[in-house]
């Protein structure tokens, strides 16, 4: 098995970064349970998924995550912090 390319969509970027994912997208300010956006916001969901998949084709840094902003999401939330 040669391995399978993956991309993670995370709303807990600090927590996910501990696992050093090969590629990850953090949609900034999305709350837990809203990885792709809010219910029914299909165009936003499509854009988040397009952006995540596009990371597969870009020179991202393995183990790190990319932050993108989506103003259409509305109210922003603070992601959980890693306990020191």
């Amino acid at each position, binding site marked *: *098995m*040669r*391995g*399978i*390319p*993956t*991309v*993670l*969509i*995370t*709303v*807990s970027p600090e927590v*996910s970064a*501990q*696992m*050093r*994912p*090969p*590629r990850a997208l953090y949609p900034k300010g999305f709350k*837990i*349970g*809203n*990885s*792709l*956006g*809010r*219910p*029914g916001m*299909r165009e936003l*969901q*499509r854009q988040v*998924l*397009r952006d*995540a*998949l*596009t990371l*597969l*084709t870009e020179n991202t840094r*393995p*183990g790190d995550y990319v932050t993108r902003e989506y103003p259409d999401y509305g109210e922003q939330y603070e992601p959980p912090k890693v306990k020191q």
Partner: protein
Amino acid sequence: MALSRKCVPFTPFDRTLDKSTIAIVSAGGVHLKDQEAFNIADELGDLTYRVIPPDAAAQDLMVTHHHYDHADADEDINVVFPLDVLRDLEAEGFIGGVAKKHVGYMGYTMQLKAMYEGTAPQIANEIDKGSRADAVVLTGG
């Protein structure tokens, strides 16, 4: 955390998205309504996973998970398991296709070693053998 000391398991993606088949693997506790629910009564968590077919309808999927608020996913499963969204991207030609198998599991467990050495390779094997996926989108809750 022991996992973070391992090498990043990076697999290059040497294709174009419009010719690639994509699978979803979610830790958000997603499964078909007629599949056995995840066991949320066990404090150690549930190490099993469910295979979701590519033609599953959103209304036939549900979440069993007690470590995040899944009220929004109950209303629209695509917020954690974007199968309809993936089908949209196939229709618009952004991706080549939707994989033949997708996977839901409950990403809460106190049995990290069993998850890492047992469940995770089983899920990878499920995707590798028979899903025909060229890449995987991972989501949590």
